[in-house]
């Protein structure tokens, strides 16, 4: 960036230096008090000097709303970027990212996040701590699974996951109340009913814990060692609506298919408290897919109707 930029253009609000071969952006950025949009795509950014030091104290940290760094050479999200507290829109598409830092949750104002076309293999659950996130693009990466915590992204309207390595989705994805668009094509999604038969029987501690919880056995912190009080607080509810039981560590993973708008059947991973918790018909007929569909229909039909633009084909 040319020296003296902030002296000549102190009121600069939008700066577009895309396609200029820039390898680093220096301290000239720090003294631009009004800058809200910075477009620097298709450059040679990605090395150590890409973003200036001292960003945290600069006015830019509060003023910048839109940052586009797509088509550069970033192999990791630069930590300095996470200081941009006012950022609403961030694009790092077409870079060389292998992961997303958990500290992404610092960008609390983020509404739009584009990370398509990288080499990302996993999504940190901390990504779910972005309360305003509406559009999340993760297409064309190497993602193998979606953390169930992503269901906490209550503002999410659009989720792009096409061309990844997903075989199933967590059933919690149905909890995304405002999700309208979901793209999933180009993933090796399981198409047949699959049941994970490796079930480790629960420990005596787990069995006791389940009984305490499901029978509402009263207890006070003075009755039990602190570790057990904590253990009891970690009970998860079995999602089978006919069960009402709880589980701690011992659960069955099962893939069930959920019908979306009469169009597509999505494989969703369920955690159930025991093999007996699955459909009363499934133990009799594992190969039949119609029973598993009707089983999931009730619990998923409401959420599925909401997702009108599921793009699978």
């Amino acid at each position, binding site marked *: 960036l040319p020296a003296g930029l902030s002296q000549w253009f102190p009121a600069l609000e939008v700066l577009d230096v895309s396609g200029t071969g820039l390898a680093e952006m220096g301290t000239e950025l720090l003294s631009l008090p009004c800058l809200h949009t910075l477009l620097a795509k298709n450059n040679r950014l990605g090395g150590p000097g890409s973003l200036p030091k001292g960003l945290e104290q600069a006015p830019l940290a509060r003023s910048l709303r839109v940052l586009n760094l797509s088509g550069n050479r970033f192999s990791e999200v630069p930590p300095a970027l996470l200081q941009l507290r006012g950022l609403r829109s961030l*694009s790092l598409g*077409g870079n060389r990212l292998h992961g997303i830092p958990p500290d992404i949750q610092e960008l609390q104002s983020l509404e739009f996040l*584009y990370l398509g076309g990288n080499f990302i293999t996993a999504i940190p659950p901390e990504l779910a701590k972005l309360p305003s996130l509406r*559009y999340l693009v993760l*297409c064309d990466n190497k993602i193998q699974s979606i953390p169930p915590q992503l269901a906490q992204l209550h503002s999410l309207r659009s989720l792009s996951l096409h061309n990844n390595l997903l075989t199933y989705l967590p059933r919690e994805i149905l909890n995304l109340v405002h999700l309208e668009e979901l793209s999933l094509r180009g993933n090796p999604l399981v*198409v047949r009913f699959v049941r994970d038969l490796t079930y480790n029987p629960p420990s005596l501690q787990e069995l006791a814990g389940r009984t305490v919880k499901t029978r509402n056995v009263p207890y006070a912190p003075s009755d039990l060692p602190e570790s057990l009080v904590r253990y009891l607080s970690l009970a998860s509810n079995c999602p089978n609506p006919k069960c009402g039981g709880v589980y701690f560590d011992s659960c069955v993973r099962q893939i069930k298919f959920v019908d979306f708008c009469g*169009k*597509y059947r999505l494989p969703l991973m369920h955690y159930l408290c025991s093999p007996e918790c699955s459909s009363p018909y499934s133990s009799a007929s594992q190969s039949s897919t119609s029973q598993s569909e009707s089983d999931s229909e009730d619990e998923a039909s409401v959420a599925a109707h909401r997702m*009108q633009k599921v793009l699978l*084909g």
Partner: protein
Amino acid sequence: FRYTRNLVDNGNGKFNLMILCWGEGHGSSIHDHTDSHCFMKILQGNLKETLFEWPGKKGNGEMTKKSERVLRENQCAYINDSIGLHRVENISHTETAVSLHLYSPPFNTCNTFDQRTGHKHKVTMTFYSQFGERTVCVSTRRDAPR
């Protein structure tokens, strides 16, 4: 947040001329063209077109890719149902794309196809804008705006 269809001219009912605006990473589903001619010209950016064979009668099993190509700025393409089905997508993660489409006769429903199974599903297409005015969506929940 997907590509928008913007109607420019309806040629007294003989054709639909529209401009499609594709954001980074946006793509269409595999679709047919309801017995109409379809011309496409790239006005900005690049679009990848993947041609598919029609699925067999049973519609079970992965659909067969015929060919694919990247259409550059000012290039034109043509398709109709006898040629096959296609998917059009902006595969760029940095550039948007704009294309001009001419459909004759005009149609507002088509079939979309699941690449993994060949199953088809009829959808009604809607416009993001018509003649420069934003079209407010009044479709029922069963419609899938394209």
